C-alpha cells in the first residue's frame, strides 16, 4: 500500500532526445492510474523511471513518501508486468513466480504457500510445472501477472500488458485486471495506448502527448470536459468532430467556413482575441431531428450499420467540412440523403485553435 508522487520528471536520452518535459502527478494509495497517449509519447519512459530501470534526468519520484530516484528497482518494492511478459524461458511457471521471492531470501515453505495462493487466484494451478513456451498467450500473460502479484509489492507497474493478446482475450483480461486490482487494492500505474482500456480500467487517466501531460482526470471528466484539442481528439470513438469556426461578436452564433452560420448560443462568456476557435462535437451527441429543428444538414456519404449504432459519415451541407454522426440503433438513412441534425448546447466544446486549450 503506497502513494506515488512524481514531480517535474524530465528525461533526456543520450543524443539530446528529450522524451519527457516535466511530468507531475500525485497517485493515491490504492489508486489505478492509466497513462495513455499515442505511441512514442513517453509513457514507457515514465513507467520505467518509476520502476528504476531508467535514470531520472531531473525531477523527483517518491514512493510512499520515500525519495527513490537513486534506488535500485529491487529496493523500490515495485513489480512490473512487461509487454512481452519477459518470463524466464528455462524456468517453470512455479520457478518464474518464485524467483523474486527466492532472491529476497524468503523461507521455502512461505514461497510455496504464496505461489500456490497466487496460482489459485489466477487459475494457474495446473500449469505450475510447465515452461512458458508450453502456454498460450493468455496463460503467459497470467503468469506475468502472477509473478508481480506473488511479490505483494507496494506498486504494480503495467506496460501495455494486453497488447499481444487477441481482441476477445484482451477484453477478458482487462476485466480480470480490474477485478484483481479492486480486490488487492495495490496502487497501480498502467500504461496503454488504447483509449478503451484506459477508460474502462483507470480510476484516473493521465493523458500524455509528446512528453507532456495534457490532462489528468477521471474517465468521465476527460470525456466530458477535455481540456485540450489533443484530448478531445484522442478520447472517444469515433473521434470528436473538430471544426474550425469563427465566433460571431454577438456571441449567439458561430460561423463555419466563409459564411455558414450555426445558431449556437451558450458562448457569451468566451473571450478570444481573433475569435477563431475550434468547435468540438462528439458524433454520439449529434442527433437526427425534424427538418424545422435542424441546426445543420449532413450530406450523407458513407454508412456503417453496426446494429447497436449507425455511424454516418458525410459533409456539412454546402461545405466540404467532414462530419461524423453516431445514431443509436438502426436508422432509416441512406447515402445521398440530406440528414437534419442537432445538438444540445451543453455538449459543445470550444477550443482555442492556436493553443489548443479549452475555452468553455
Amino acid at each position, binding site marked *: 500500500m503506497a502513494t506515488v508522487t512524481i514531480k517535474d520528471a524530465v528525461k533526456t536520452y543520450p543524443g539530446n532526445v528529450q522524451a519527457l518535459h516535466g511530468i507531475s502527478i500525485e497517485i493515491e494509495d490504492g489508486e489505478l492510474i492509466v497513462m495513455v497517449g499515442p505511441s512514442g509519447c513517453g509513457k514507457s519512459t515514465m513507467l520505467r523511471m518509476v*520502476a528504476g*530501470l531508467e535514470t531520472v534526468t531531473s525531477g523527483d519520484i517518491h514512493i510512499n513518501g520515500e525519495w527513490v530516484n537513486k534506488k*535500485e*528497482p*529491487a529496493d523500490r518494492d515495485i513489480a512490473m508486468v*512487461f509487454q512481452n511478459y*519477459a518470463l*524466464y524461458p528455462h524456468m517453470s511457471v512455479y520457478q518464474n513466480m518464485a*524467483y523474486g521471492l527466492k532472491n529476497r531470501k524468503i523461507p521455502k515453505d512461505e514461497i510455496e504457500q504464496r505461489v500456490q495462493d497466487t496460482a489459485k487466484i489466477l487459475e494457474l494451478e495446473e500449469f505450475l510445472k510447465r515452461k512458458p513456451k508450453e502456454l498460450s498467450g493468455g496463460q503467459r500473460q497470467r503468469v506475468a501477472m502472477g509473478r508481480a502479484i506473488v511479490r505483494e509489492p507496494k506498486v504494480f507497474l503495467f506496460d501495455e500488458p494486453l497488447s499481444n493478446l487477441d481482441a476477445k482475450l484482451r477484453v477478458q483480461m482487462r476485466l480480470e485486471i480490474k477485478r484483481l486490482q479492486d480486490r488487492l487494492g495495490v496502487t497501480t500505474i498502467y500504461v496503454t495506448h488504447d483509449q478503451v482500456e484506459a477508460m474502462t480500467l483507470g480510476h484516473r487517466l493521465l493523458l500524455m502527448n509528446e512528453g507532456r501531460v495534457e490532462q489528468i482526470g477521471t474517465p468521465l471528466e476527460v470525456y466530458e470536459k477535455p481540456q485540450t484539442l489533443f484530448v478531445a481528439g484522442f478520447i472517444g470513438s469515433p473521434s470528436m468532430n473538430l471544426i474550425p469556426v469563427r465566433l460571431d461578436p454577438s456571441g449567439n452564433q458561430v460561423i463555419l467556413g466563409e459564411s455558414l452560420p450555426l445558431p449556437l448560443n451558450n458562448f457569451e462568456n468566451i473571450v478570444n482575441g481573433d475569435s477563431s476557435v475550434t468547435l468540438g462535437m462528439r458524433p454520439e451527441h449529434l442527433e437526427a431531428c425534424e427538418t424545422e429543428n435542424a441546426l445543420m444538414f449532413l450530406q450523407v456519404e458513407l454508412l456503417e450499420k453496426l446494429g447497436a449504432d449507425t455511424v454516418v459519415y458525410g459533409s456539412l451541407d454546402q461545405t466540404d467540412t467532414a462530419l461524423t454522426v453516431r445514431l443509436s440503433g438502426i436508422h432509416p438513412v441512406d447515402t445521398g440523403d440530406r440528414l437534419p441534425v442537432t445538438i444540445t448546447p451543453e455538449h459543445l466544446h470550444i477550443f482555442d485553435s492556436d493553443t489548443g486549450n479549452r475555452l468553455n
Partner: protein
Amino acid sequence: MIENRPTLNALTHVTLVIGIVIVIFPIYIAFVASTHEARDILMTVQGWFGTNFIENYSTVLEKGKASTGSISVALMMWNSLVMALGIVVGKISISILSAYAIVYFRFPFRMFFFWMIFVTLMLPVEVRILPTYEVVANLGLLNTYPGLVLPLIASATATFLFRQFFLTIPDELAEAARVDGAGPFRFFFDILLPLSRTNIAALFVILFIYGWNQYLWPLLVTTEQNMTTIVMGIQAMLYVPDDINEWNITMATAILAMLPPVLIIIVMQRQFVKGLVETEK
C-alpha cells in the same frame, strides 16, 4: 522436400552412400591394418581383419612404440585429454564472461575492448607463436599443462558468438531479473548460463576437437617425453629411420586418437545440433 519422387529419393541415397564410403574407407583401412602383424602390412594393404587386435592395442596402450621411446599411448591420450579439456573449459569461461561484460555493462572504452577482441580473430596462434613461447618460457611453464593450455584459451570467436547470442536475449528479461532482485551474479548464473546451454554444448564439441588436434604448440612447449600429446605421438611414429616401420602400431594409435572426439560428438550430438540451429527463447 515435400514431394515424394522415387528417382530423386534414390539419387539422394546414392549420393549419401558414396559420401559415407569416401569418408569411411580410409578409417576402415587403418582399422584393418591395426589388427595385423607388422610384416603382413609392410608392403601391401590388407582388405580384411587380422588376428592381432588385442595384442596390438594392448601393446600400444601400455608400451607405445619402441622407435619413439616407448611412451604409452594411454599417457599420450591422457595428456591430450587434459589439454583439450583445459582449452575447452578455459575458452568457454573466459569468452562467456567477456561477452557478458561487453553486452550487459556500460564501462569506459567498452567498444574499444570489443574491437580489440574482435581484431585478434585475425591473428591465429601461429602468428604470435614466438612471442608467446618467450612468455611461457619466462614464466617457467614449459613442459607443464598450464603451459600447454593457457596461451590457447583466449578466444575471439567464442566471445563473438556469445555476444551475438546475448544480443538476441530481450532486454526485458534482464530488467525483469533486476526487478526480481537478481544482481549481476544471480542474473548470470540463474538466467544467462542456463539459456546459453545449447550454445555452450556446440562450442564444447567444436573446441574439444580444436584442442585435441593441437599440434604445433604442444610440439614447441614440450620437450619431455611424458608430456607428449597423441597428435605429436602419431607424427613421431611416422618417422622411422632404418628399421621396419610397425604400421600396425601406428594405425592402432591413430584409431585410438580418433575415439575421444567421436565419443564427444556422439554424446553431445543432440545439444550440439540444437545449439547450431536454434536459439531457445
